[in-house]
């Protein structure tokens, strides 16, 4: 038998003896690769096309559509045509969007993809999105639309904007059309031949190229994450090496060349790397597929699970390389020791946890600062580096925390004290376990902190409409391209009458606006405008600005342009319960909240201190946060642009239905949106994180079982109950999990730093109690329970081999 074979066999025997250790390393590697793959796939699949362009790279506008089509047909550029019109539906408020594209056209397909039934075959057939008729109509039914009766034969969706509701028809022109936005021509990419046409406009979409940037950024992140894992895996191998020091010594004493030992160690590492990487890869794909439905709802897009081999390559390479090098390193280090030193396997000197912690704090601080600065200055690289340094720094605190726990343990009952001390004794190993646990929980914790902050802010800026309010708008008031000339006062007045007759339970208040003359908007210095800024966006639960007051934020020049001002009529004040709060003589603007802030050149400042009255408004409302007094509106004549309807309690489905079925034309309906909370996302994240954490805990328990058996046998010889051993294991698992949880919480708060420091739309500091409870209490308890369950009950007969 050659020396090499001998060393190989010896090395394989070590793996078999320490297989539990290797499983811990494997688990950490697998999780890291899975996380990296998850991140990469998520980003890759999220940075897809835009909801208006489909797969098109450019939109061409022209006067002469026929000529354009000729050119497009003759070139080999893929293109798609999309035609959209608005039509009325008989007996129902509001209009319906009708869209026509060529079915299965490669460019427009994402904008109208068939999900059920079939494509319309004639002008009497349509396909619909599931919500366009308020979930009331299904395939096979007929509907009166734009003066025709049409049959629903299929279901479609805009895969790039799932919430978009429309009707798909072959030719929209067959309907009585309310408004027609014309045909849009989308081409795969801009084509030189198009320039031959006169009078042509081209706008290009740079969406797809974003993907490359994102991919690079994610790979940078992954590279750092894998580096972090390298530390952990390296620590794991170091632990094994330490326990096997004598074996190394014996091997060396028997004459095995150091280089062979090194290469055998590297081979072991490589095998672990391949297994861990493949498992992690599969796990990552599984996680992404599991998260897909939640992600699709969040981003409002269908996500196709594309697996980009090139983008994933760095992760996979690192996954193999990292453990290979990590396994080789301690073997190399041991080779430097004398054989005698190896054989005596003296107690290692304690690791310098203090210095490491200082380094950690410095790194974490630096990371946080870089993150904030990079984020606020939109410096991607800076922010990315910050994002990486922060967590790495905090992970470096693990050894200190473990040591601290060992100190604290002096006050614990016997079993728990032994648990804490045993952790502290093998500090490096414990720290790597803690780091692995912290890492597993950090991502969901970060998610919890960020989403809670977003939810909190959304709550501070209540939804546009309270649950007892709805608004009937004159056509085209929303969104912000409000053109007063297009408002039809007669239609609005008629709508108000119809509504109060058909739905008497609603209290209607006219919504009035004035449009200031832009020339009057500046004083001598050209700064302050006459009308107050109609500040503050109003958010619905999902953070979209539904009824933003118009033009609230100044452009980069020093001017503030108010295109429209909302008038606080006595009726409006009554409806909002504000009539007693406003003395029209002393104030020109009523502002929600304790002080309204507007943004000017990135700073915050009070607007119109001398003229505003800040007040607590009673509830969410679609009216902007600033109203002006009728007298302040001056000579401009207020125009009614719609109705605010308030019911006695929360709007019932029956009432909403009645409103929808009221015969109103030329108006639009705005309803309170469903309150969006991200708690499902949080719960899912925490569940996954905890499961991964419990997996690590399980490996840790298995890993430590043999070591603890000695202590628990000795305790039993002192008359401790056989449960003491289990309590010790539970104590270790619970304490490791608790420290991991603490680090996870610290890491979880990092992303909030830039969000809080951002001058625009500052996010509040939050304490996500539920998630904290999970991470700091429930998870450690679950880990302790796991330790308890997995450690076998000490046998009645105590094994002699520990004592003799």
């Amino acid at each position, binding site marked *: 038998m050659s020396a090499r074979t001998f060393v190989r066999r010896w090395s394989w025997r070590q793996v078999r003896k320490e297989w539990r250790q290797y499983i811990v390393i494997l688990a950490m590697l697998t999780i890291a690769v899975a996380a990296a793959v998850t991140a990469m796939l998520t980003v890759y699949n999220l940075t897809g096309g835009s909801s208006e362009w489909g797969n098109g790279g450019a939109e061409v506008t022209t006067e002469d559509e026929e000529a354009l089509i000729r050119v497009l047909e003759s070139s080999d550029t893929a293109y798609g045509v999309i035609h959209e019109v608005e039509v009325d539906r008989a007996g129902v408020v509001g209009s319906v969007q009708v869209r026509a594209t060529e079915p299965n056209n490669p460019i427009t397909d994402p904008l109208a993809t068939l999900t059920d039934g079939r494509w319309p075959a004639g002008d009497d057939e349509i396909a619909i999105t599931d919500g366009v008729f308020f979930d009331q109509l299904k395939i096979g039914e007929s509907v009166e639309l734009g003066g025709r009766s049409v049959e629903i034969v299929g279901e479609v969706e805009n895969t790039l904007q799932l919430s978009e509701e429309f009707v798909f028809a072959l030719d929209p022109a067959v309907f009585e059309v309310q408004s027609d936005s014309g045909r849009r021509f989308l081409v795969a990419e801009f084509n030189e031949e198009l320039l031959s046409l006169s009078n042509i406009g081209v706008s290009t979409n740079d969406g797809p190229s974003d993907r490359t940037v994102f991919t690079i950024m994610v790979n940078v992140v992954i590279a750092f994450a894998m580096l972090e894992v390298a530390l952990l895996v390296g620590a794991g191998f170091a632990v094994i090496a330490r326990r096997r020091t004598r074996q190394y010594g014996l091997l060396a004493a028997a004459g095995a060349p150091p280089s062979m030992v090194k290469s055998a160690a590297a081979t072991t590492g490589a095998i672990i790397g391949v297994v861990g990487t493949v498992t992690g890869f599969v796990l990552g794909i599984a996680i992404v597929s599991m998260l897909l439905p939640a992600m699709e709802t969040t981003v409002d897009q269908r996500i196709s699970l594309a697996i980009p081999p090139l983008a994933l390559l760095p992760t996979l390479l690192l996954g193999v390389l990292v453990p290979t090098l990590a396994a080789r390193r301690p073997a190399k280090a041991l080779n430097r020791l004398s054989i005698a030193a190896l054989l005596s396997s003296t107690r290692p000197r304690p690791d310098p946890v203090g210095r490491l912690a200082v380094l950690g704090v410095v790194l974490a601080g630096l990371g946080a600062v870089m993150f904030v600065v990079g984020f606020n200055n939109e410096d991607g690289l800076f922010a990315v580096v910050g994002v990486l340094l922060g967590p790495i720094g905090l992970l470096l605190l693990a050894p200190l925390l473990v040591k601290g726990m060992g100190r604290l343990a002096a006050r614990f009952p*016997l079993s728990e004290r032994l648990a804490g001390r045993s952790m502290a004794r093998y500090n490096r190993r414990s720290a790597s376990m803690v780091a692995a646990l912290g890492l597993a929980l950090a991502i969901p914790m970060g998610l919890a902190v960020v989403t809670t902050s977003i939810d909190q802010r959304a709550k501070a800026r209540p939804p546009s409409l309270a649950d007892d309010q709805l608004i009937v708008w004159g056509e085209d008031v929303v969104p912000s391209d409000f053109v007063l000339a297009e408002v039809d006062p007669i239609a609005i007045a008629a709508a108000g009458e119809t509504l109060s007759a058909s739905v008497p339970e609603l209290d209607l208040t006219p919504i009035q606006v004035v449009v200031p003359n832009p020339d009057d908007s500046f004083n001598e210095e050209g700064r302050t405008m006459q009308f107050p800024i109609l500040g503050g966006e109003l958010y619905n639960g999902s953070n979209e600005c539904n009824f933003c007051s118009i033009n609230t934020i100044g452009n980069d020049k020093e001017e503030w342009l108010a295109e429209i001002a909302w008038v606080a009529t006595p009726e409006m004040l009554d409806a909002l319960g504000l009539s007693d709060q406003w003395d029209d003589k002393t104030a020109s603007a009523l502002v929600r909240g304790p002080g309204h802030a507007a943004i000017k050149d990135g700073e915050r400042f009070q607007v119109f201190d001398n003229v505003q009255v800040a007040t607590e408004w009673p509830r969410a409302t679609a009216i902007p946060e600033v109203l002006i007094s009728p007298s302040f509106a001056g000579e401009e004549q207020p125009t009614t642009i719609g109705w605010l309807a308030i019911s006695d309690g929360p709007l019932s489905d029956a009432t909403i239905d009645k409103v929808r079925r009221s015969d109103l034309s030329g108006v639009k309906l705005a309803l309170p949106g469903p309150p969006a909370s991200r708690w499902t996302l949080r719960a899912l994240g925490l569940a996954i994180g905890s499961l991964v954490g419990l997996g690590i805990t399980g490996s840790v328990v298995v890993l430590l079982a043999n070591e603890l058996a000695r202590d628990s046998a*000795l305790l*039993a010889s*002192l*008359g401790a109950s*056989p449960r003491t051993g289990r309590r010790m294991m539970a104590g270790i698992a619970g304490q490791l999990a608790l420290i991991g949880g603490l680090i996870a919480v610290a890491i979880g708060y990092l992303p909030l730093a830039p969000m809080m420091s951002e001058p625009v739309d500052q996010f509040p500091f939050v304490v996500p109690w539920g998630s904290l409870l999970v991470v700091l209490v429930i998870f450690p308890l679950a880990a302790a329970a796991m330790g308890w369950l997995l450690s076998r009950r000490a046998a009645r*007969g*105590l094994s002699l081999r520990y004592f*003799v």
Partner: protein
Amino acid sequence: MSTALSQRTEYSQAAGHLISLVGVRRTYGEVPREVVALDHVDFQVAPGEMVAIMGPSGSGKSTLLTIAGGLESPTQGSVHFAGKQLEQLSAKDLAEVRRRHIGFVFQGFNLLDGLTAAENVAAPLEIDGVGIGAARDEANRLLTSVGLGDRGDAFPDDLSGGERQRVAIARGLVGERRLLLADEPTGALDSQTGQGVLDLLRSACVGGRGVVVVTHDPNVAAWAHRVVTLRDGRVESSYRPNPTDQFGAAYSSGSVGAAEHNGGVVR
């Protein structure tokens, strides 16, 4: 045989033995490869008696000690301790016997690395529900008695081999235990340190405590009341090196019970 056995049991209990093993057999493994570690062993310790167990390696000394201490159960035969038959006790009650009445000192791995010297000594008390403060005070008192009063806060890693054994002895004595079992406590020590440890054990006999020491020390005769030698799992001989001491007198008169009335103290 069973009548004879029960009679002997009666006798040994009546005689006030601290512990008595009757007809103990212990085997390891299944039949073809069965190892008989102990066979037909009768063994008693009287209060205040110091017994040395000797014998070649593998003769069953450690096995005898662990069975006597309730760490291992006999395959056959019975163990009586203070009127109770150990094999019949539940795991919980057995643990209580070990905790309250029997102390152990092993050759090597004796102390919990995660506990300081004082905590190691206090451990049985803490397990028994004594408050940490009181347990530590008691531990410190005992550590002082073994000459380690100032080393209470040291962890085992920082103690020498002899110091560790002394800590183990202190722990074996804590809580007024009636029986101290030591398995080659001096095996890893130089002769001078070993002598100090033996002196400690000998002084532990005062107050009626029984002490059993497994040893290879040829100078046993100088300090033991009785020497029991084992060979191949059987008692080879049992003799009193000093016929003139209290136990020797009782031995020669043929009644251990008498010795108890003469000098042994029963609590």
